[in-house]
Each structure stands twice: as C-alpha cells, then as structure tokens.
C-alpha cells in the first residue's frame, strides 16, 4: 500500500521514482542481480568487493556522465575511447618526456581532450555532419594521434602520489578516483535537474527546432555538450593512467559501446530528450556488477559473453513489461 502511494505521487508530483524515468526496470534488474549474486557466491556481499566494484566502474562511470549529456541532446559520441587514449598519451608525454610537472600535464591533457570535443561540435553544428560520422572520424583520428605521440609505445612510471590516487583508500573507504567519480556524478545530477543550462539539454534533445524558437542557443549547447563529454573522457583517461600507473595508446579501445550501453540501459533514450544521471548510474552499476559477479561465479569467459547479452536484454526488457502493465 505504501509502495503504491509513493508511485501514485511519483507520477503526479515530480517524485524520486519519476526522476529515474525509464530506469525503474533496470533498477529492479540491478537489485535482482545483487540478490542473486549474494546468494550464489560467498564473496560478492562484502565491503571489500563493494569497494572493488566502485573502483572498477570509475572510468566507465565518468565517461558515462559525459555520454548521458550527449545522448540527452539526441547525439552520440563514438570517440570517447580514443579521446581517453589521447588524453593519457598527452599527459604521459608532457610529464615524462617533456618533463613538466604532473599538474600541468593533467591540465594540458584535458585541454587537448576538450579541443577534440570542440572539433566534433563544430562539425556537427556548422557543417551538419551527423554526430555518428563526426565522432567516428574523431575516433579514428584521435587514436592515430595518440599513437603518433610515442610511435605506439607506452610510457610508465609516474610519481607515487599519482598512482596512490587510485589505490589509497582514505578513511579506509574511498580512493581519490572513486571520490572523483562520485563528485562528477553528483555535479552532473544537480546540473541536469536544477540548472537552467541542464534543462536546455532536455529541450534541445526533445526537439531542436522548438528549442531554437524558444530562444535557446542550440549550437552553443551542442558544442558545449561535446566539449564536456570529451573533457570527461579525458578525465577518465587520467583516472585510468593512475589506475594502471602507465599510459598506452591502445587504451580505451571499444569503450564507446560499453559507455553508450550503460547510458541506454539506464533508460536514457537514444532519440534524445529523456533520461537521467541516476539512470546512467544504474546502467554503469549493472555492467560493473555483472562483470564482477560472473568472475566471482567462475563462469567461463565465453559463457560470460552469452550471459552478459541475456542480462542486458532482460534489464531493458523489464522496463517495457513494467510500463505495459502500468
């Protein structure tokens, strides 16, 4: 009865559940998955494993936030994996080859990432190249540049404090990188829910022409979103570098599909205009928990691929069934 009341309210007032919009099905899926794994293994349900999962989803989580923005405005970004690699190589080269301080290297890496996003944004707005093509091209080009920086070689050995960002569990709980991810998610959530710039993304994604006629600068919003997505991909690259204590130009290969999958599993519509950060977080967690759980269950790698496919469909299909019943 109580549950019913909450739902009633949720659908009329802008309650919590309705804020997750399309993600209630996936949320149920996530909970079911966790319950199943807690029963099926004796290692899943532990603080240590929980923290491991958080560690494991940092990179995906940060990238998925940027991708949520892009998909909300009805775009898509296939270049995130390559931009991540580019950012890593720029940072590694600046710090270890050019010998600049780490802080400067990180800033430069983020600037270069942002610049690649700017190029994509300009292609999409000024030259009307479909986002799929513009970012596919950037995916190829950024990977090429990342490779050219060191002629395909990796760079290892950063200052100790840098690596410790991904390892030291402050207060015994969160590493700096996990904390960073949580901050990024929180800021993005507040931005999308409560800032007028955030609401503009929904308007642009809902119908760009309506948004333009309502006085929203659609081109500026679009470029801004691609820059933000690229900078976040770059930031994910820095996190990855800390996690691996090395950078290599082949990093992040294939991450674009993972990232898009996380966002879409979280209920954000690929046609734009509807979705939420909360949903994306659920999508990221589903992927993270699933990979972790299948390893803990000692499922053979090939069978894992099959199960991942099935669970993704179930998580998203559950949402449809729920809606149909409602």
């Amino acid at each position, binding site marked *: 009865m109580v549950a019913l009341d909450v739902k009633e309210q949720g659908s009329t007032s802008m309650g919590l559940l309705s804020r997750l919009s399309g993600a209630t099905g996936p949320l149920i899926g996530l909970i079911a998955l966790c319950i199943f794994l807690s029963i099926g293994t004796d290692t899943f349900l532990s603080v*240590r494993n929980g923290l491991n999962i958080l560690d494991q989803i940092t990179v995906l989580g940060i990238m998925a936030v940027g991708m949520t923005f892009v998909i909300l405005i009805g775009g898509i970004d296939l270049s995130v994996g390559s931009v991540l690699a580019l950012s890593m190589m720029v940072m590694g080269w600046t710090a270890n080859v050019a010998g600049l301080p780490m802080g400067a290297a990180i800033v430069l890496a983020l600037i270069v990432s942002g610049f690649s996003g700017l190029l994509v944004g300009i292609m999409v707005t000024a030259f009307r190249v479909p986002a799929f093509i513009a970012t596919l091209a950037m995916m190829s080009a950024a990977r090429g540049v990342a490779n050219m920086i060191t002629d*395909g070689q990796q760079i*290892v050995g950063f200052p100790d404090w840098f690596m410790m960002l991904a390892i030291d569990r402050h207060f015994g709980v969160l590493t700096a990188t996990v904390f960073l991810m949580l901050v990024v998610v929180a800021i993005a959530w507040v931005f999308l829910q409560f800032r007028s710039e955030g609401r503009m993304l929904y308007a642009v994604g809902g119908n760009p022409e309506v948004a333009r006629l309502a006085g929203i600068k659609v081109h500026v919003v679009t470029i801004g979103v691609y820059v933000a997505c690229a900078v976040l991909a770059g930031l994910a690259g820095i996190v990855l570098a800390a996690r691996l*204590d090395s950078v290599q130009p*082949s990093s992040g290969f294939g991450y674009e599909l993972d990232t898009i999958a996380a966002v879409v599993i979280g209920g954000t519509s690929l046609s734009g205009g509807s979705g939420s950060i909360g949903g994306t977080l659920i999508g990221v967690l589903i992927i993270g928990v699933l990979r972790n759980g299948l*390893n803990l269950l000692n499922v053979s790698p090939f069978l894992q691929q099959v199960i991942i496919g099935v669970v993704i469909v179930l998580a998203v299909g559950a949402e449809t069934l729920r809606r149909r019943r409602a």
Partner: protein
Amino acid sequence: KDVKKIGLAVANLQANFFNQIKQSVEAEAKKRGIEVVTVDAKGDGPTQVNQVQDLLTQNIDALIYIPAGAAAATVPVKLAHTAKVPVINIDRNAVGAPGDTFIATNSVSSAKGVCDYIIKQAGGKGNMVIIHGQKGTTPEVDRTKGCMEAVKANPGVKIVAEQWSNLWSQDEGFQIMQNMLQAHPDVNIVFAQADGLALGAAQAIKVANPSQKIAVGGFDGDTAALEALKNGVFDVTATQQTQKMGRMAVEMAVKIVGGEKVPAEQLLDATLTTKDNVAGFIANHP
C-alpha cells in the same frame, strides 16, 4: 602450504597462442586437483586489472598472469603482492613490478631463426617485406629486432615494404599482402610476425599467383598453422612451447606457494618448425 585455487588472467582468448596456454594450465591443474578460475581481458589492460581484483577477492593461492595490452601493467602484480599472492608472469613482464617468476619465449633469437631460414630459401638475396604485428607491442618489437639481425647479415636482401596489423589477424594479413604484391610484384621473401598474418599472406600470394617462388615465414606455431605448414601453405614458423609454458606455470605456482625458490626468468626457445619436423609438433604440441 598447498595450492587449492589458481587464478588465471589471460590477455586475449581470441588469440590461439593464449588459448593454448589456457588449455594447458587447466589440464595440468586438473591433473593435480587444483581449481582454476580463468578470466579473459579481451586485450584490454584496464579490464584485466578489474579481473585480477575479482580473482583476489576469491582468495586464490597463486596468480598466473598473461598481461594484456601493449605491454605489461604493473598494477595487477602490485595488487597480488599486496594480497600476498605470488604471481607467475607469462609472455610479458612489467619493468617496475616483475612477477615472482617469468616464463616466456626468447622471441629475438627465434625470430632471427625464422628470417635466416626464409632468406636462405630465397638464396640469400631478394626483396623482402615484413608484416608486423600491432605496432609498439613487446612481441612486435622483439620479433622485428630478431629478424633485422638476420637481414643485416645478408646484404643482398632489401626490405621494400613494411606494414603493421592491428589485430594480428588472418584477414589483415591477407589484405596487407595483397596490397604489397600490388605495389611490389617482385617480392620473394615475406616475414609475417604471427601465424595468422602468415596464413593470410600465403592466401594472398596464392590468389595473386606470381611467377616467382615466395618464401613465407610466420611465428607462434598455432595449431591450425602447423596443419597448414604440413600442407605446404607456407614455409616456416617458430613453435612456441605453449603446453610447456602452461605446465611450468602451474608447477611454479605449487613450488612458490610451497616455499621453494624459483628462478626469476625462464626463457624457452621456440623451435624452428618446417615441413620436415612439423609432424611431431602436430601429434604432440610442445
């Protein structure tokens, strides 16, 4: 102390070389009554870090680590050592954080052997092309190094073209060779840095049907490639001792956990394999 459970982190099961090691490890462990938990990083370094974390959560007694990515990452070894789990590295070793022991093939000398052989087949001179593996990866660098030693020793050999593959795959080998033959029809020596690439190159040569004889060398000794070698599809490969690597890795795990000292590095030779000696390798892969 006994080994009950081993974690096996494989770089990429899609590559026959790694898959053979995996199968050998699992077979040997089964014989000894040890449980193996296998994870496949599909070639992605960060994924492998996640997977090693998951393995450690399951309280494994030893980790057999075949690094993914262009070069070995240090973090999995550090993580394992923090959890007091010994690490056996196979194929690649990280500079900053080596495993307790490292088992690999001496790629440089083996590659030299392959290139010596194909150059000799071509009569010590001619136009040579190299189909590299994924640029910048350890095997690519080592195999190039070894082969170049052979090339330098034969001034009659001229390298006319080099291309790099991304996935070490047969399809790429085919495409690259087809284009190379187009640009340089007079090639007579081909070194492809993996058997997949070599098989693809051989197929491309068959399609182009050139007038001259072209000597093709590969590397790895993949099961399928050995069959092809027997049928004369290409000329020579260096068979890595994958079965032995797998067996050794399990053995080392037992020894280290039992408190024995083991050498830090154990390099195995890859055996030069041609039509003459291939039958033995097919019957019983080393």
